[in-house]
């Protein structure tokens, strides 16, 4: 049967029904199967939309976070008039102690600020963590040592303390550098410190990944073709890092929301008249035994935000887990 020897032609594909394996498609197909994640994703998108359109929404409802409603608070003590922190048709979630500002509107604007800070800081963290991690992992030697020691240094700092201590002066420096005074520079400060103290974690992960990816033969194949360092780093290696980076990003974002809230709680938040979740929670401390809604409303929204982010992050992680489904 000579035919045996000659058949050497195109093969039939096996498992060709498996969906195309681009990262995006993998994540998306797997995510879509996860009902809970989809619900959370939906909530998240809704929250982002709410944040972006907060002024419009507040306008429609006739509330805004800045105007003082002196009628809604008592003349003695400054507490809200009415039960549950002064919940009324005018003020769907009540008013702030002492000023009568609308809690609902504050919440929406706080969401805006929280998301702005957390999202931007995440992007920066991911950027620096990735770039420095890749460089550190690929270059090795002295570069690696310098970046590594810098990371050690940063990780050894009690960062909350530093952020607290440095907020005033660094905000001023930023202003001196041309960042508009006030909230722009405060927010910038928060974004910067969160990124500065955040990147080493990702850089470590990325570095580790690079160390293993660069040992994979396709990198060598690329070198053997005569590829430039740029191509190797960013075309060959980087695409293989998206999974850990994406996972890290989705899990970092909620952490930053929480951290920003904690910092606001400790007084390093945005400037009045603006406020964020942490600021609202910090304010609540003096009153919550009398008006618990001050604690619960921003707290619950914050938790919902963080939980949904985390759930989506988890789902992304599972979707990207190479071992997933191998039970």
């Amino acid at each position, binding site marked *: *049967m000579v035919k*045996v*020897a000659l*058949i050497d032609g195109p093969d*039939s*594909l096996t*498992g060709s029904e498996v969906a195309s394996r681009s990262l995006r498609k993998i994540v998306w197909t797997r995510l879509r199967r996860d009902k809970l994640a989809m619900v959370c994703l939906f909530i998240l998108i809704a929250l982002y939309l709410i944040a972006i359109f907060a002024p419009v929404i507040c306008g429609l409802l006739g509330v805004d976070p800045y105007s003082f409603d002196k009628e809604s608070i008592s003349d003695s003590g400054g507490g809200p008039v009415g039960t549950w922190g002064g919940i009324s048709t005018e003020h769907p979630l009540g008013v702030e102690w002492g000023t009568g500002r609308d809690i609902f509107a504050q919440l929406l604007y706080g969401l805006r600020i929280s998301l702005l800070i957390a999202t931007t800081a995440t992007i920066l963290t991911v950027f620096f963590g990735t770039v420095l991690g890749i460089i550190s992992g690929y270059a090795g030697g002295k570069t690696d040592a310098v970046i590594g020691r810098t990371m050690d240094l940063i990780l050894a700092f009690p960062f909350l303390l530093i952020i607290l201590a440095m907020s005033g002066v660094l905000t001023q420096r930023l202003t001196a550098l041309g960042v508009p005074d006030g909230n722009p520079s405060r927010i910038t400060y928060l974004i910067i410190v969160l990124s500065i103290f955040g990147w080493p974690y990702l850089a470590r992960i990325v570095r580790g990944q690079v160390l293993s990816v660069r040992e994979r033969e396709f990198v060598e194949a690329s070198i053997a073709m005569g590829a430039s360092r740029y191509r190797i780093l960013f075309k060959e290696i980087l695409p293989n890092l998206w999974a850990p980076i994406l996972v890290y990003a989705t899990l970092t974002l909620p952490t930053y929301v929480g951290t920003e809230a904690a910092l606001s709680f400790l007084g390093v938040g945005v400037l009045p008249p603006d406020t964020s979740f942490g600021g609202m929670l910090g304010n609540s401390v003096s009153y919550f035994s009398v008006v618990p809604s001050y604690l619960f409303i921003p707290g619950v929204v914050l938790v919902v935000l963080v939980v949904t982010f985390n759930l989506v992050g988890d789902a992304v992680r599972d979707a990207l887990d190479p071992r997933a489904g*191998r039970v």
Partner: protein
Amino acid sequence: MAGKANSQRAFLEVSDLSVQFPTEDGIVRAVDGVSFAIERGKTLAIVGESGSGKSVTAQAVMGLINKRNADVSGEVFFDGEDLVAMPEEGLRKLRGNKMAMIFQDPMSSLHPFYRIGDQLTEAVNAHEKVSKASARDRAIEMLHKVGIPAPAKRFDDYPHQFSGGMRQRVMIAMALINSPSLLIADEPTTALDVTVQAQIIELISQLQREFDTAVILITHDLGIVADVADEVAVMYGARVVESGSVDDIFYHPQMPYTLGLLASIPRLNQVPGDRLDPIPGNPPSPLRLPTGCVFNPRCVYQDRVTGDVCQTQRPALEDVGAGHQVRCHLPATERQAVADLTLNLLGRPSR
């Protein structure tokens, strides 16, 4: 043999064993109606391509498949007891005691954090109440048997201080320390160099003789099969497609896949530089086993079968001689002709 309900049961008799893993992508039929049997002191080799279900079969026999995430059905009679139906505790008592297993990768099969000696005595203590000292003596003796020089000294070493071949010897020592009557060796030499492989295979045969153990040797290397096996089961696509004595398989193969396998291996006793005769196509995914005969997409002989039975009907395991069974739709005459043709090509005598 397997399937003959009223005959005397063999020492180990596996009949119609199936293992399915439900996964995200669908149900993986890793093992699909596999049957075979083996007596004490004999060696059964299971050969087949990667992913054909060899390891899962072995683990199913050992009761190592986690029943929580897999469906195991069929029967595994070991010394008269059905292992599939047996509760976990009973299996545990058998494992490492009456039946033992060694694995493909000696590098990762030993716990990296515990001393060699402790891992060995642990195997003793799991089944017997013996004093520390006597467990130690037994372990050292076993290490000596598998050819570890200065076993008393090496007793306290960690696995990473051993070379690959040495580790595989330790694994063998661990498997045989309770004198099992069944040893399953899952590709015990794939990760080793040829020169070491030869040592290990030799060692297993030697110990098999000493303990009168039944050995199931899983491999994809037909050379090793030719070397040590008494019986051979050829697996393809989760099924046994041909089984029989080693001579049946090598000199009288009846299944096109077995033939293709024999034809495609480069051999030292072949014309150097000649073209090889590969089987076309690729092995099937266990997620989507072909309907009918699992080999049909790659089979070049199916045009010799009338109709589309190859594509639609699953062939039964058919007796074609004493203990020689084949799963193929080819008519007996055609099978013989095909076998002769190929064997001629290989330069072997046909029957």
